[in-house]
């Protein structure tokens, strides 16, 4: 991951649960509020940016500007005043806030270039932009809810895969990650090698390939659920998010 996403790293430890984050964002202490704000930015900036690019069809610069404007607004204490965990998912709350905010901005046409077009939040805009192609721009135009959900899922899985990579490297099991990368991270089903070809290539049995893949997937599942637990406010929300996130019919 790009270093520039590691914003304000020296300002104290991050809150680790959504409730801590939301409480922090409502805090009167500016430092606590800033840390909570950073946690929200890290978790959601990609889905926000890509939804603006894909579903709203905004240009690269426009989307950057709006993304920053949205998160600037999220720094204010009253931003999370309406959020009640019992009423629904945080992800949905954030998406609705975004929709409301963007439509207000566009309707009023009062938005001005912030910082003279200079990017205030040091985020990896280029990598987010590289994940957007013409097909996704066409397919997602106008469908804010679906695009936001999908980009949120992509963002969460991407960070889980990175964490998995780190775990494998730390435990001296890099070859497991390579196997997982070759099979499970293939760009398309056509690019995915067969179990047999992987077994031949690595000089192991087919059952070893499948068993190792199972083991890595178990770890990935654990990491995804851990991350999800950090991003949800209750057990019920965690279960709902897990149900909608995992599985072929998850959308």
């Amino acid at each position, binding site marked *: 991951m790009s270093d520039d996403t590691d914003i304000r790293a020296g300002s104290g430890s991050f809150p680790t649960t959504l409730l801590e984050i939301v409480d922090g964002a409502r805090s009167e202490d500016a430092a606590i509020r800033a840390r909570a704000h950073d946690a929200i930015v890290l978790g959601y900036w990609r889905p926000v940016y890509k939804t603006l690019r894909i579903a709203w069809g905004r240009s690269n610069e426009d989307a950057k500007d709006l993304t920053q404007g949205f998160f600037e607004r999220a720094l204010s204490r009253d931003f999370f005043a309406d959020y009640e965990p019992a009423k629904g998912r945080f992800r949905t709350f954030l998406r609705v806030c975004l929709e409301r905010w963007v439509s207000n901005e566009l309707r009023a046409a009062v938005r001005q270039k912030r910082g003279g077009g200079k990017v205030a939040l040091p985020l990896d805009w280029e990598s987010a932009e590289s994940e957007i192609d013409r097909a996704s721009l066409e397919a997602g135009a106008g469908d804010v809810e679906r695009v936001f959900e999908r980009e949120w899922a992509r963002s969460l899985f991407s960070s889980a895969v990175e964490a998995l990579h780190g775990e494998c490297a730390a435990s001296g099991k890099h070859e497991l990650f390579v196997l997982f990368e070759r099979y499970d*991270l293939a*760009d398309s089903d056509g690019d995915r090698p067969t179990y047999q070809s992987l077994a031949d290539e690595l000089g192991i049995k087919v059952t070893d390939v499948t068993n190792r893949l199972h083991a890595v997937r178990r770890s990935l599942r654990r990491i*995804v659920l851990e991350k999800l637990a950090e991003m949800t406010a209750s057990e019920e929300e965690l279960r709902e998010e897990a*149900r909608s996130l*995992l599985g072929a019919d998850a959308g």
Partner: protein
Amino acid sequence: MKGLSDAALDHLRTVTDLPDLSGTRYRVVRKLARGGMGSVYVVEDVELGREIALKVVSAPGAPAEIEERLRREARVLAGLEHPNIVPVHDVGRLPDGRSFYVMKLVRGQRLDEWARTGRSRAEILRLYQKVCEAVAFGNAHGVVHRDLKPDNVMVGPFGEALVMDWGIAKVLAGEPVASAPGPAGEASPGATLEGAILGTPGYMAPEQAAGDNHRIGPRTDVYALGAILYFLLAGRPPHAGRTPLEVVHSVLKEPPPPLRRLDPRVPRALEAIVEKALRKDPDGRYGSALDLAADIDRFLDGSAPSAHRETIVDKTGRFIAKNKILLLLVLAYLVARGLVMIFANR
């Protein structure tokens, strides 16, 4: 590291959801369905070389109540050996901690899909009787299904009907399944909280829709069977609405639209059977699913169903329909006899 493509994301979402079957005799073939409580997969039993269905709790870290409900469903099914109830082969816990059970893989169509494939009324009613018999068997063993609907009945390629999804079944106190030795005995009639509404509103009896759980019994399933018959004859459930709450309100307060208003071809006798099964007061319904099946049998046989008070016109019409061939023969005989007499007198 490069970003995840759409295909890679979809693939990861699928494989991270697959049940971890390592260390078991089962291998995932494909996902079959996903319900409120769990997902069902087609798996291969590598020891026996056959495909079966494996139901597993969907959500990770599901509350003990959901885990217990799945295991309870397996125990209830294990206690109900009947040709029209899906048999359970195995129950256990996966390495990732999720509960599962393995059952026969039912190939075929859901009842609603099957009924849309140009079946005659008689064919539909004969299959419907099998559903009634399976439910009656469950009820006789102290089990109330509570979620009967067309989606929960599978029709096999040879016309066999299988009643599925006993996940929210209520086991009545002191009845055979509840009192059976072993784990089945743990199933408790109090497993459903008083006031909690479980089931599918469009097919739900009023006492169930009202959360009046102490009134739930075999006649609750009779109501749902009536609602299924209504669906089979009218193509829609007896109560509908834009939201589940609207449907519940309709179930509690309003009569269903008369069947013959939706389809005038429905015979009055059949309409009367459905009407009796769908009475809001459980005491007004059939006493059991078998009584309902018996009335269907009478209808198919051309006899008068107990639910239908016939007029003289109805009686005559039914007599004619039932004795069509005999009446035609008598008529032919009389015509021939008349002709003979006319020619003989010339």
